[in-house]
């Protein structure tokens, strides 16, 4: 466990020094600050529109950040042989993979949290409201990105960054297309087994409703744990079979 955490810490330190999170958060923050200047969608709903656009920006920024950090992390470590000095010690390949995922997910989650703070500041100035409900969106986005990072890390054990980005986009598309792709009822109802990311769809309740229930939060956490676990398990198997 301590070795896994050491690897996660090293990944966090490296990501922070690459300044990618700063750039993404800064860019997204500037955009968030510009939201109040958008044309009004209707009198009395500006804060709701603000929340919706802010969450959408947060989502896109988090996705870009996740893929930017995860797509080339392992391929470059294998290519530059930095992984050799780690894996030649008493470190299992699963510890290496999980440590990498943990570090990347922590960086993405921290960036989303920083983005939320910026959005809250803008909301306070523009609408006199802290909009604490945004943190539910933050949690949802961070968890969904955890799944995407896990999938990206798993795919990257055997392929390069381009394939990782394409595969991640495909997983995202499939994950949010259950209602379109799986229909039917009774014997043909496969929706229970579908790797759906729909649990993370909290845009409307956060932007326009009163937030989400504890059950929805629990559902998000369970989907995060289940799908991340499956992706990481696949990654461990693939990495375990691979020659470095």
């Amino acid at each position, binding site marked *: 466990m301590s070795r896994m955490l050491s690897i996660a810490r*090293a990944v966090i330190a490296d990501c922070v*020094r690459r300044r990618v999170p700063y750039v993404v958060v800064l860019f997204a923050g500037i955009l968030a600050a510009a939201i109040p200047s958008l044309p009004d969608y209707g009198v009395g709903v500006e804060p709701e529109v603000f929340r919706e656009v802010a969450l959408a920006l947060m989502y896109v920024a988090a996705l870009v950040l996740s893929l930017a950090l995860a797509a080339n992390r392992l391929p470059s470590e294998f290519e530059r042989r930095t992984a050799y000095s780690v894996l*030649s010690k*008493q470190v299992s390949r699963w510890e290496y993979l999980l440590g990498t995922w943990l570090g990347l997910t922590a960086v993405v989650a921290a960036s989303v949290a920083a983005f939320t703070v910026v959005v809250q500041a803008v909301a306070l100035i523009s609408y006199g409201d802290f909009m604490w409900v945004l943190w539910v969106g933050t949690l949802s986005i961070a968890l969904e990105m955890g799944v995407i990072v896990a999938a990206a890390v798993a795919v990257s054990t055997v392929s390069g960054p381009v394939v990782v980005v394409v595969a991640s986009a495909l997983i995202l598309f499939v994950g949010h297309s259950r209602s379109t792709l799986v229909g039917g009822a009774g014997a043909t109802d496969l929706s229970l087994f579908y790797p759906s990311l729909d649990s993370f769809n909290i845009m409307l309740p956060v932007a326009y409703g009163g937030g989400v229930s504890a059950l929805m939060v629990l559902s998000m956490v369970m989907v995060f744990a289940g799908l991340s676990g499956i992706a990481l398990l696949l990654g461990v198997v693939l990495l375990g079979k691979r020659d470095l």
Partner: protein
Amino acid sequence: MEQADSAIRVDGARKVYKTVGKSPGRAAVDGISLEVEQGSIHGLLGPNGAGKTTTLKMLIGLVKPTEGIFEILGEDSTSPKGRRHLGFLPEQPYFPQHITAMQALRFYGRLAGVEKQDLDGRAVELLGKVGLDGTERTELSKFSRGMLQRLGIAQAIIGRPKVVVLDEPASGLDPVGQRDIRNLMLELRENGTTVLLSSHQLSEVEAVCDRVSILNAGKVAAEGHIDELLNISGQTSIRVRGLDELPAAVNALAGDVAVSGSVWVFSVEDSAVRSVVDAVDDAGGAVMSLAPKRESLEDYFARLIASARTGVAS
């Protein structure tokens, strides 16, 4: 050699890389066996593609062997637990660029099991030992190739391993750096550490290794003590000085004659040594040294590889 004395044991190592189609695949390593005594320095030599790096990678679990047993101090080294006494320097080591030397060594030290309270002290000590004093706070992006190599050696030994595997440790180092690494290897051996050294630098191998294994085309082409491999049986190398030219009696017996100033080096049959020494003495020369004639490792290596290529036994 008793198995209990083996720090490293490789038995029947084989690695076949699959090829496209129905062909049986290409064997990069084909039945290599090695035993390295505890507290010794063992050299691994061979041309490019001989299977050195693949063998090392199988030993430390980076490449999955097709067949074979790999042990370090009696434990399966392909499992993480079996590597707890191992330090490894990969060929041309690379590190995350945006961390400092101190941070890098702290990281590798934690992975190697160094106690938290000892990490900083050990890191500073090792930076000094490998000639990187004062670089604690320097980002690795500012390190030269040679400095990265030195840092690679430091991370390999930070956990005070009992077995160290070095893949081309002198690569990228200037002559002073190469000498430092040689001294470091000798110091490790003095402290009881076993070193497996893969190198193209034959002079380095000759200077420090107790035994060598020469690999070619995925197999062990020769293995033994340096002296056993290089000494030419029945021949003595003689170095004399003070002569403008060799006496006729010596000239008739001497082979491989080389001269520099008034110093002559040549070889003769063991049985002719006494008469040659007398002839040199009579001519007013002085014998500086007598030693068993030894082939240079370069010549031996080239001859071995050439004979393997032509299918002629050496």
